[in-house]
């Protein structure tokens, strides 16, 4: 990891829903332009971490910092304005609004920095053809592309991706990962939560493995991929 200050850091984060402790004392940081993958068993708390970082839930304890500023108490919309954007689990596109309206909403909080719509249509040609259609009429893969485009149009500095490959056929998963690599290449910082742990660790530079709400293993992604304990417990390889 580089010596420069991280763009995003999470310190001793805990999240609970009712009596269930979803996340306990999780800390990690991401250098600007870096990519971190959070992997682990289902229910290990990966999505809860992203929900707390993006402002969708309030953490019980801990601090979230963006550029060193404490943003733990900020509402979600303020984090979006500061360039911290979530591509949520299950895509969460607005089905009754058109593709273009979805993109405009994505640009809404950062009008000054936002990219023109046309740039997104160049990146995602499939959306260009459907710009006037209700987003609900897109296929699952196209909706995932729209969810990513809707996040990218605001030219964010940090993108949080929650299970972008979930429910997609393998061929579509390939395309999603191609897009994630393009985003990385453009110096945007990425935090990726994935069920497809092998895929995620191949793409990221650092990985954290969560187990029942706590970080059990951390390290360079390539090493985690080789670590027999990690491989056996989380990748299910025989």
């Amino acid at each position: 990891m580089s010596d420069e200050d991280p763009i995003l850091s999470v310190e001793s984060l805990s999240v609970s829903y009712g009596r269930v402790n979803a996340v306990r004392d999780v800390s990690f940081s991401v250098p600007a332009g870096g990519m971190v993958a959070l992997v682990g068993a289902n229910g290990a708390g990966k999505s809860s971490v992203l929900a707390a970082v993006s402002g969708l839930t309030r953490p019980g304890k801990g601090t979230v910092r963006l550029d060193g500023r404490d943003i733990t108490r900020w509402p979600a919309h303020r984090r979006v304005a500061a360039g911290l954007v979530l591509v949520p689990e299950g895509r969460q596109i607005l089905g009754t609004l058109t593709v273009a309206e979805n993109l405009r909403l994505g640009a809404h909080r950062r009008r000054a920095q936002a990219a023109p719509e046309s740039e997104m249509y160049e990146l995602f040609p499939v959306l260009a053809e459907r710009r006037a259609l209700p987003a609900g009429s897109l296929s699952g893969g196209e909706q995932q592309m729209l969810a990513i485009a809707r996040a990218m149009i605001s030219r964010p500095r940090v993108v949080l991706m929650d299970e972008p490959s979930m429910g997609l056929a393998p061929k579509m998963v390939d395309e999603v990962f191609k897009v994630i690599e393009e985003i990385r290449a453009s110096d945007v910082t990425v935090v990726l939560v994935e069920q497809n742990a092998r895929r995620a660790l191949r793409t990221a530079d650092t990985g954290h493995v969560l187990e029942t709400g706590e970080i059990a293993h951390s390290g360079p992604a390539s090493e985690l991929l080789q670590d027999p304990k990690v491989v056996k417990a989380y990748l299910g390889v025989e």
Partner: protein
Amino acid sequence: MLAGYDTLITNIALAVILAYSFHVVLMAGQLNLGQAGFASLGAYISSLVVPAEPLFGSLSPVLIGIPVGAAVGAGAAFLVGLPVLRLRGVFLAIGTIAFGEMVRVFMNNAEWTGGAIGLRVEKWVTVDLAWIVVAVLAYLFWRLGPSRIGRAFAAVREDELAAGSMGVDVVRTRMTSFVASGAIAGVYGVMFLYFFGRITPTTFDFSLTLGGLVTAVLGGYLVFFGPVLGAGFLTAVPEIQKALGVEAGWIHPFITGLLLLAVILFLPGGLSTLFARMRRVPAAPDPDLGALDGLPPLPDRGTPIARVRGLGKSYGAVQAVREVDLEIRSGEVLGVIGPNGAGKTTLVNMISGLETPTAGEGEILGVALGSPGGAHRFAQAGLSRTFQHSKLFDRLTALDNVLVGTHAISRSTYLRRLFWMPSARRDERRARALAWAQLRRVGLAERAHLRPSALSYGDQRRLEIARALAAHPTLLILDEPAAGMNHVEAGELAALIRGLAEDGITVLFIEHNVKMVLDTCTRLVVLNFGEVIASGEPHRVAADPKVVEAYLGAEEEESEHVR
């Protein structure tokens, strides 16, 4: 000493009766607000038949009025329910309000009702009679709780689609609660008329309806004594005000409003939550190995149990499924894969009776596709399923969720429970034993008393499988059971599915996790753009170039994924 309070105490009883007519629909998740209309009909029509003299010299003539009122209310609710129960939620509420208003205007303009001046009768209702009626109602609702129909009400309230898939006849259950509500409202109308001795058409107006709703909700509709609490509480407010000597007329509605707000904000289940918290959690019974005995045997391995031919479904111009031929034989594990939007979920929805095909024909476990009646008929024939996005009953415990699953293979117990018949107790005990057995099978026995929201995602999926298994299915359909699971969990799930197949259950499952599909199924069907493009022995199908091209992608990384 109570003598001076006769009117007050009877008023409470009347409020309880009215609240029960809301309670019974709220239990089943229906928002009927037509009670004023049913009460009005019950009161006016019973006035035509109630004799002017006591029966046999001493019995209150209302004893004739009560069954008449109940019958009129029930009959009217049935007739109104036929068209109106096609509606749901707010629409149902407003439709029933409209019915109530129509009755009011009609009574106002009819001659035999005395028009706007109203009706005068002898006051035949006494405190005792009013509270006897309350006691009978409370008993009826007490025995309803842990009965098969009580669970069906709760299931319909929480999720109609899932309830239907568990064999609950949703249409009939909703109608039952609606008719019961009409009957109780009819009784209320009669009791009101013969207690106050006078009604006008505006007696039964929208504010009366709102009052009843508020009482039922305030008391809590998840516990049988809720209406008693709600009515007692609301009646106490003006009495306390009087006792304190506060005169101002606005204080009473003001305090009532504030208290209602406080209860709904801080006691979500109504006042009865205060008492329900004290209930102890029943312990898990010892594993009852006999629970699964006595269930009907599953068909012999290899017997055809389902067959569809030329099956198709189109939504407007979009053809989701076309020309699908499929035969399912007992004991096989059939995997269905295909890219997103290939029509997999539509296909299983048609097979399980949730959607009607637009082309083709088929027969599933002896039930013809497209025959009227809906999903519960397929469930009763032995088909059980889970959903792509878990459809669990949120306000029921894990155990109660699974108990609903036994609906299709159990007998109605309510009437027998009313008379404490041992056979009802035996049936309930057997249902619970079955439910526990399934919870153990999926490894959730320790979490039986948690609500689904307190379970992890993987546990929720397992719970849904346990619920489906509780119906003792011949054919089990799983829609993406491993979505969101990691490889380890998926491996455990695959082992569970193989175990089910060994027990003779036929499994059809949709899945994206290719490794798991190949590990589990005995036959694989691949859909693309709504058509079957390959089917047969799993590894051979997966190697088929057409399938690789359409589904797996041709890259090196993916072939590694498959192996």
